[in-house]
């Protein structure tokens, strides 16, 4: 747990924030790899293709179907014959035009709710998660037990946590008892948003805490000692030493949390309910339309949500690409070093 023999060397060196160890000799292993796995292309294809096939069927095909479906309108009376149509009429971009026109208010409301929830919950989670990780990183008795406890919110199904928080936020519930107020949390209004945010942050902050903790544990102690000897206070050590070093781990966690928060559905659906303006997210909007057999608009919402998630993901990779890559390379190097430690005879075998 406190294994500090494997520092994320590459990250440290590349970013030049602290230079600790001489960089290890560059291993030229790729060649031996190729020889050991010669002719593995066909085998790889055999092993990988089932997964690719399944993902094509359950992800790619539905996505294309959604794109196609979003161009069709509801069945209904055909004005030329007066009968109910057997097939759905092609309406082109009409569904999208509706979203930005007639149905615009509901769409933009859901869009802003989704964005608001994502920004606020991920922000709070990051702060609370980092604080948790810093506390957990200290040595104290019963640390393993606390680490197990921290996993409990993660293990509680989101749907169940929605019910739990609905009970807590009941008008006669414990939240009002503690606050000494009579707030009707589950009714429309800003307080409904607050309820959803509190519940979401409770469930996911420990997750960020764990990821940051893992990042903290590979920072060598010497870095902190050096900073302390140089006279840096606790706050400055955190800001200028700890934070930059856990940044790659933290960024990956934040990216994951953002993409997950953008598709939020269970919690507002159960905690407050469907078709509530204050908490309706894009996922809820699309699901609601689909369950009312309005597949055209539902698909259009689904496509827009998909594009939104894609855009955010790309923006992340673009803005923070170097850090994300650094995180990866750091991992790679430490893994390689781990292998060196585990198997010093490896080169002999290869030679």
């Amino acid at each position, binding site marked *: 747990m406190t294994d500090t023999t494997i520092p994320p060397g590459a990250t440290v060196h590349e970013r030049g924030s602290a230079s600790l160890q001489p960089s290890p000799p560059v291993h030229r292993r790729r060649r031996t790899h190729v020889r050991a796995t010669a002719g593995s292309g066909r*085998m*790889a294809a055999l092993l*990988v293709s089932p*997964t690719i096939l399944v*993902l094509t069927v359950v992800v790619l095909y539905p996505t294309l179907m959604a794109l196609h479906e979003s161009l069709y309108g509801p069945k209904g009376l055909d004005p030329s014959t007066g009968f109910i149509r057997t097939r759905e009429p092609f309406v082109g971009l009409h569904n999208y035009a509706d979203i930005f026109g007639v149905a615009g208010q509901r769409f933009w409301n859901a869009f802003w709710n989704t964005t608001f929830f994502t920004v606020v919950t991920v922000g709070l989670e990051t702060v609370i998660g980092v604080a948790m990780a810093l506390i957990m990183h200290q040595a104290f008795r019963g640390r393993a037990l606390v680490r197990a406890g921290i996993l409990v919110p993660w293990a509680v199904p989101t749907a169940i946590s929605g019910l739990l928080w609905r009970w807590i936020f009941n008008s006669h519930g414990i939240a009002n008892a503690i606050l000494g107020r009579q707030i009707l949390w589950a009714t429309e209004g800003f307080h409904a948003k607050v309820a959803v945010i509190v519940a979401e942050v409770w469930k996911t902050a420990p997750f960020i805490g764990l990821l940051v903790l893992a990042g903290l544990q590979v920072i060598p102690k010497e870095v902190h000692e050096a900073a302390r000897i140089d006279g840096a206070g606790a706050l400055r050590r955190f800001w200028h030493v700890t934070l930059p070093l856990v940044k790659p781990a933290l960024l990956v966690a934040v990216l994951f949390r953002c993409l997950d928060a953008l598709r939020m559905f269970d919690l507002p659906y159960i905690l407050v309910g469907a078709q509530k303006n204050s908490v309706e997210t894009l996922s809820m909007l699309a699901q609601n339309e689909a369950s009312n057999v309005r597949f055209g608009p539902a698909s259009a919402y689904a496509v827009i949500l998909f594009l939104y998630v894609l855009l955010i*993901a790309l923006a992340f990779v673009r803005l923070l690409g170097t850090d994300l890559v650094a995180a990866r390379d750091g991992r790679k190097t430490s893994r390689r070093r781990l292998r060196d430690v585990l198997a010093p005879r490896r080169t002999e075998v290869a030679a």
Partner: protein
Amino acid sequence: MTRTATWRTRLLYVGVAAVVAYCLAPFYWMVVSSLRRTSDIFDTSLLPTPVSFENYRAVFDPTQGFTRALLNSLIVAGITTASALLLATFTAYAMARLEFRFKRLILTLIIATSMFPVVSIVVPLLKLFTDIGWINTYQAMIVPSMSFALPLAVWNLTTFFRQMPDELEHAAMIDGCTRGQAFRKVIIPLAAPGIFTTAIITFIAAWNEFLIALSMTNKSAIQTAPVAISKFAGATQFETPFASQMAAGVLVTVPLVVMVLLFQRRIVAGLTAGAAK
């Protein structure tokens, strides 16, 4: 010096207590509420007095169909986990051990699919399954669940396979095994802990799924536990049966919490391998 040290320790324990309270207090409240009598469900005392198992009896009342829902959950999550693991083991092995073109691209794409908004595939699949009569079937929940279970399993397993030294297979192959035999007889047994951890993480993800199960079913006989609980009926239309919901929630969560407590170290390793590293 010693005084600051004691203060530091005290402060640390205050922090630890805060973290534990933050994580466990809501869960504790669920357990306490589930043990109250229905008549004093609105009590706010920290301990249930008197302790009553009335709500647990109510949950297993045949009219709620909760036993059936638990079974449904077990079937859907179990089959999803098993199939995802089967496919992912082969793929992850290739990702960790073999060199081939576009490896990084393929791995990135597989992992990217797990970040996909589930609703984007639920909407078109709902229409497709309605057309082919799959609504209210297990496969209608299992197939879409693969969209998040499979990438999760592939990533976790890839990390585990990568951590195993290459010499294992080299030795086996020098001893006359083919690559397939080396995989079957050496790698799989040794990777068992990693496969097991991946199974737990995948199972929890599948067990907790709500949106797919909600959309693909409209009969109570086929609903999974989370959906069933969210639809528990109270005595009257306007009364939400919080007490029995809490009891059912505890029943659904406790197996997961026990698993988490037992395999805490491995799960943390798996989770952080899947995301942080």
